[in-house]
């Protein structure tokens, strides 16, 4: 009897809560839709694109290291959350200047990755690595740069505010990741993830992503500055994007060995 009452009360409370927060897009959207659209807004804007990226990596002692690279991206068949190709040309620091990095991102398989070392004229195929390890020594993981598959977690809409969908995501395969869950504040109008907090098994937040500046470029709201702080590693990385452009008609063959050896200079500027 008590149990039944409890369930009824919970159900009523839940329905009240959800109707109170029901706004226009929410009715039509289930959680997976929101997550899919957030992934598309963060990683699939436009058909293709280019950006100059500056990373400032602050370690736990406050020492700074920097990375500068140009990144080119194309979406195969202009499909959101589908296959993508990335071309990254490092500019600084000097020891990795002119090193080129090519990624073919697959939706359902390990990414294919190549690295070109100009001093040796060597095209090296890189073994797939844990997606949740540091990208070029920063606090961003590979997965933060190329996107975590929206199907890799179970998503629950925890809260809805005027500005945000607040979504809690729990990994389907807990073995493959270092977090127990994460929470995403997704901007309702643009679907841009504004903040992401990662929690350990005890519910403690240890890793925080924050989008700190957004610009609308070629009609696409774009995060142009973001930070990732990680208390386990200590310190944080600030990543800023300049010279962002979309729909620049990148030929698909740019993402091949030919351009690893000879950078596509015309498209990098």
């Amino acid at each position, binding site marked *: 009897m008590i149990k039944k009452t409890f369930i009824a009360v919970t159900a009523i409370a839940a329905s009240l809560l959800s109707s109170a927060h029901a706004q226009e897009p929410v009715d039509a959207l289930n959680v997976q839709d929101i997550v899919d659209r957030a992934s598309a807004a963060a990683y699939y804007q436009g058909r293709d694109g280019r950006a100059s990226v500056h990373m400032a990596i602050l370690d736990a002692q406050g020492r700074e290291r*920097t990375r500068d690279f140009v990144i080119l991206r194309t979406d195969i068949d202009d499909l959101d959350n589908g296959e993508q190709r990335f071309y990254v040309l490092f500019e600084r620091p000097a020891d990795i200047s002119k090193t080129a990095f090519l990624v073919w991102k697959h939706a359902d398989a390990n990414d294919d990755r190549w690295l070109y070392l100009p001093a040796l004229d060597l095209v090296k195929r890189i073994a*797939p690595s844990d997606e949740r390890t540091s990208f070029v020594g920063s606090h961003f993981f590979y997965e933060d740069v190329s996107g975590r598959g929206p199907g890799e977690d179970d998503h629950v809409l925890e809260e809805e505010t005027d500005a945000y969908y607040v979504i809690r995501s729990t990994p389907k395969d807990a073995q493959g990741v270092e977090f127990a869950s994460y929470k995403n504040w997704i*901007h309702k109008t643009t679907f841009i993830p504004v903040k992401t907090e990662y929690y350990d098994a005890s519910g403690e937040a240890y890793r925080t992503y924050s989008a700190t*500046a957004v610009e609308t470029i070629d009609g696409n709201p774009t995060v142009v500055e973001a930070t990732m702080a990680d208390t386990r590693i200590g310190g944080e990385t600030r990543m800023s994007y300049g010279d962002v452009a979309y729909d620049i008609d990148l030929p698909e063959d740019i993402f091949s060995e030919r351009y690893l050896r000879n950078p596509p200079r015309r498209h990098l500027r």
Partner: protein
Amino acid sequence: MAHRRTIFYATAASLILPAMAVAQAPPPLPAGLSSEPAEQSERQNSTTPDLPSGLEEPSEPALPPGLALEAADKPRDTSRDARDDFALPFGLSGFAEARLGARIVDDPTQKTLSVGEVRIQLERDVETEHANFRFVGDFLYDGVAGDHSVNLEKGRGFFDLREANVVLRPVNFLDVKAGRQVLTWGVGDLYFINDLFPKDFRSFFIGRDDEYLKAPSDAVRLSAFSDIANVEFVYTPRFDADRSITGERLSYFNPALGRIAGRDAIIVADLPDAWFSDDEFAGRAYRQIGAFETALYGYAGIWKTPEGQTPLGRPFHPRLAVFGASLRGPLKGGIATAEFGHYLSRDDLAGSNPLIRNSESRLLAGYEREIATELTASAQYIVEIISDFDALAGALPAGAQTPDRVRHLVTLRLTKLMLNQNLTLSGFNFWSPNEQDGYLRLRASYKLSDALLAEVGGNIFYGADDNTFFGQFENNTNLFVGLRRNF
């Protein structure tokens, strides 16, 4: 009284604030997402995320500048830290380094120092509308070398020209690279089958940076691209030999003397050096099939090391042709590689001349994968099979030692990144089970800053016999340190 009130408010706040934290206010909208310009006054207390410029709702994350309906007041700070930005003038970049190493095994035929040098590498790219030019040159003071006169072919002296080339695209499907350049292809890891471009094993063995394993070629490279396959030709009008072990700096086994020799018996080989007749052709056709890269190779030229001897005992470079193939692709969470090459010793097609290296087949199978966080392991198994073993064995003079028909080689590489990827530890071991010898390369490099790299390493040769490939270098076992400043 007023004092008491203050305490009350403070206590109330301390009770309420943690509760707010638990309720977890949403993050402030970042610049660009907020509907109003950022205002300091709209910031939340420290337990909830800051409202980035321009969110009205104080209880959630501030919209970042840019998500606001109005533009943020404050322009984004795009300034870059220039602390480490000492730059060279005239668009030059490069590095300066010092490297010092010593033998840890007594070698009566060599100096104790294995490497002791200061090097400045300068590079410059010049881009024009139709062509890209590239120059890379090393100014070098080498305290171990005996001869400092410049020889750009041998890489001797105070200047070593690494690259001086132009890249052109006369038509859309064709790239042409002409001039001095470094060339590499094939899928082996520190083992080359179809890559017959010049190597510098001296640099490799004494602990110079890996890039110096590749000696430059003076060549023209034509690369044609199509959907069916990509085809490349490299023409080297005058033979480029390996910078191989001659005894000058590293000791080796001298069969005529029957012992390890060094500066007391320097190999002076006849070098084929006639333009357009002592030339080399190398070709490759490659395409990707799914996730796998496939390639076919061909080479017509000359053995890169002096693999022949005249009847009077003078070493020379016999003619050579090679054809082969390679495959590389993903397998069970790692990368699998396979390469094959048949070496045709064109001056001894019957294989019965013991003074010229026999024809042989070389096969390689490799696998690499990440076995733990930032720890990558790779292994290769390699065989070299003498083609006309019976003819060779029958032609050997009485008393001469018969080589093994098959040489087996196993390589193992471990690479570990630590300390935010600033420390790299790596070990690479070559080991031949049938020759019972090997070579262990150990490296530890640490990035003191973005510009400064410190390195220590060892090159350890071991073997049961003096006359095996790695065993003959036993007395060259060395340790080294290096410091490099990039700019």
